[in-house]
């Protein structure tokens, strides 16, 4: 009883607020405004079915896409551009004199010999390195077994190993490069 009296006391003040909000159909309290019972349940059932059907469709699509094997990106280096295979691009070289061809052959032979000596020296150096390493490890084993075991283990800090190649000229001191930017225009392949 007292509850109802209190309701009626604050109702006129709250009515104005309720009437302004568009979520409220009537000027009465919340529990008497909308029919709360039947509709939301129906909505739930239909939603569940729809969601299930959607999920099944997506799973089917995923299965179909996953069936196709992944492809490697084609490498542009191995495809000669068509403009280089035109028949008009043919060079006509001048005829060589016999002295010139003789000189060239002798030069080639000298170069072959030089490269062979270089290669043999490299192989010898590698052999010497490996032999000295094995000898050192043998001596270490005789010294102490656990140090030898620790030396044999692989080095985790070795990889990744990065090194820039040597440059023809050192960098110019006090060189002021112009401002600019780099845009990546690589072709993106999608499956």
């Amino acid at each position, binding site marked *: 009883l007292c509850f109802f009296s209190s309701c009626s006391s604050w109702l006129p003040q709250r009515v104005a607020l309720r009437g302004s909000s568009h979520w409220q159909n009537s000027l009465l309290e919340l529990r008497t405004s909308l029919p709360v019972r039947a509709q939301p349940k129906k909505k739930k059932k239909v939603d569940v079915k729809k969601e299930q059907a959607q*999920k099944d469709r*997506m*799973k089917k*699509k*995923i299965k179909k*896409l*996953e069936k196709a*094997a*992944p*492809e*490697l*990106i*084609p*490498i*542009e*280096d*191995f495809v000669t551009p068509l403009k280089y295979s035109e028949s008009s691009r043919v060079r006509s070289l001048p005829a060589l004199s016999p002295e010139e061809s003789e000189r060239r052959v002798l030069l080639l032979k000298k170069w072959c010999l030089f490269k062979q000596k270089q290669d043999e020296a*490299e192989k010898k150096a*590698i052999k010497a*390195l*490996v032999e000295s*390493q094995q000898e050192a*490890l043998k001596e270490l084993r005789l010294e102490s077994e656990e140090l030898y075991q620790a030396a*044999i*283990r*692989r*080095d985790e800090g*070795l*990889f*990744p*190993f*990065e*090194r*820039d*190649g*040597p*440059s*023809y000229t050192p960098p110019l001191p006090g060189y002021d490069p*112009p*401002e*600019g*930017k*780099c*845009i*990546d*225009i*690589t*072709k*993106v*392949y*999608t*499956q």
Partner: protein
Amino acid sequence: DALLGCHRFYRSRPTHGIGKFKYLLPKEVPKRRKEKVQMKEIDAGTEYQYGDVNIQMTSYDLCLVEHFAQYVHRLCNRLSIQVNESYAMPTKTNEVLFLEERGSKMQLDAVLTTHQRVVQIRGLSSTFAPILLEIIQSNQPEGVHLLVKQHTEADFKSRLKSRPELEELLAQMS
């Protein structure tokens, strides 16, 4: 009647092999099925051996990097190190623009192509690894950037084409 109606050809008879014709046709090469691109198992290696190691060579000069990759491959063959694969990564193209001295417009300077070759080796012993690195370093040509690292699944996936639809659907599912 049973004897006359018999259709079997004996090897001694002149009618042997009558009706055969496939031996007259040209030999057909069996059609090779397209091999599916599958990731090979990555070897982790033991305590005394490194597993799959990638030697990646990058440069702007195509011929130089190709020849260096061939040299490294032959070197590994000579030193009896097992080479799993030797492949090329897709080329990257960059447009270099620079700002003119007087003016605010960016001018096209050059179009640079970056080429990368990878030699994958397996079973490198821990004692020989520094020697191999030393050899490769001493023969490294100018302008070629060397990177030696362990092989991972991410490295393999970077060679494959991207599938945006599949990724989208998978993102929606989860």
